[in-house]
């Protein structure tokens, strides 16, 4: 080895890359470029307006629907199904899921039933539920509740499972009664899994409300989109679809806020 500085060579650099880097502008840029390209294609007459309305036409339709109150009417009708359906399904799902997570007997009894019923697309049960509850609101709410129930059960009981055993042993070693162990260890320890399940169940609820409204409803975003399609009002149809995206984003945003406040400790 020579001591001459001029003889030394730098060690080649092999690291770097594969790290997610924040790119603040890029997502917006891509988003607007895509819309601009779409608008340009529409304006140039490359996209037939009947099959693919331009972004401007969709925005116009949205503004018009907002001003004449149609949009609010349909969104309200959908929300009146989603909210009670989701609450009922989540409430029942959490009760059953936590019971399955805590008691071996409930799990042994419930798991086969849940596993058998979970894969059924719940919309297939709508006709049966219509027979039971009539064509009105209860059958749609029940479909959503059922669709929400099963994923909630599964996320709640696997969340219970993921609570570290050593925390339960610790609680036992300090003489905590069983009810305290559930309330102070198992339930809070399950919250991350339960809240992650809420994201899934919320998207299931959105999916089912649209499907149920397409099968038999006068109002609601699903009904509106279907009617617009039947009348070949594609701009209105797309306005309804955009509304669904907005609704989904709002739900995800709201759940994000709940997660951040409930799971501050993470």
């Amino acid at each position, binding site marked *: 080895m020579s001591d001459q500085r001029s003889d030394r060579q730098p060690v080649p650099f092999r690291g770097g890359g594969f790290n997610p880097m924040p790119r603040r502008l890029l997502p917006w840029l891509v988003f607007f470029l895509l819309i601009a390209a779409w608008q340009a294609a529409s304006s140039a007459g490359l996209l037939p307006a009947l099959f693919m309305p331009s972004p401007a036409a969709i925005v116009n339709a949205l503004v018009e629907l907002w001003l004449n109150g149609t949009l609010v009417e349909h969104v309200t009708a959908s929300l009146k199904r989603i909210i009670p359906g989701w609450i009922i399904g989540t409430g029942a799902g959490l009760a059953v899921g936590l019971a399955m997570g805590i008691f071996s007997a409930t799990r042994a009894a419930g798991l086969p039933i849940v596993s058998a019923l979970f894969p059924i697309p719940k919309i297939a049960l709508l006709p049966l539920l219509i027979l039971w509850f009539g064509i009105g609101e209860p059958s749609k709410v029940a479909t959503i509740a059922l669709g929400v129930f099963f994923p909630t059960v599964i996320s709640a009981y696997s969340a219970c499972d993921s609570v570290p055993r050593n925390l339960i042993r610790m609680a036992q*070693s*300090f003489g905590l009664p069983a009810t305290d162990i559930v309330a102070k260890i198992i339930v809070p320890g399950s919250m991350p899994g339960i809240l992650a399940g809420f994201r899934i169940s919320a998207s299931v609820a959105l999916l089912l409300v649209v499907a149920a409204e397409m099968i038999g409803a006068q109002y609601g975003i699903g009904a509106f989109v279907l009617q617009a399609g039947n009348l070949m009002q594609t701009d209105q149809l797309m306005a309804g679809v955009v509304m669904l995206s907005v609704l989904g984003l709002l739900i995800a945003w709201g759940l994000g806020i709940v997660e951040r406040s409930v799971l501050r400790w993470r």
Partner: protein
Amino acid sequence: MPLHIEKVSHSYGTVEALADIELDIADGETVALIGPSGCGKSTLLGIVGGLLEPTAGRVTFSGQMPSDSLNPFTYIFQDFALLPWRSVADNVGLALEHRALSAAERRERIAAALALTGLTEFAAAYPKQLSGGMRQRVGIARALVVRPAVLLLDEPLSALDAQTRELLMEDLLAIWAREKSTRVYVTHNLEEAARLADRVVVLSRRPGRIREVIAIDVPVAERGQARHATLLVEVHKKLWSLIRDEVVTADREMQHV
């Protein structure tokens, strides 16, 4: 509180973990359990504190259960076992919430335990924000807050780096000089055993049996003094010579899964 481990054996299914453990622990004594991994020392600790039921034998205590102890048999865990969603003060308070205490007394006890472990300014912090050493101090505070008669330490310093371990050993000694309790200390670290224990119980490889009980005659509080340095080295050497072969065999053993 004097403890008596009477002919305790334990098996996990067909795997024998402990065989015929017979040991008396005097009131206020600190006994270290050492042995190669898989010798059942943690199992024995679980049995002593009533978290595990032995396959045979029993653990008893004699004399009166101290009336001021809220949780006579109290553990300090290797992985700290803190609730990540509770602040430091609330983790310590967990041990008191189900006890009949006034809110004021609860607060007082928590404050005293935090002060004793140097955690007062971290009371509102969450475990995630703390270093490993601080987390174990929370575990220690949680154990002190119930005034245990028997303190069961399950490799309490094993998850910490060497320097933090040194600090916490000093802390434990300082606390033990003030708080009366009988202590069982499971460790694989020979130095911890030599520094902290009045007697060291050396267990053999699975199934764990008592190979030898070594009493260290220098009082724990004086072991830091330079004139006892050679003694500690001797103890360390002796312990190592007792378990070295077993560690070698345990190390080469294949897992039967």
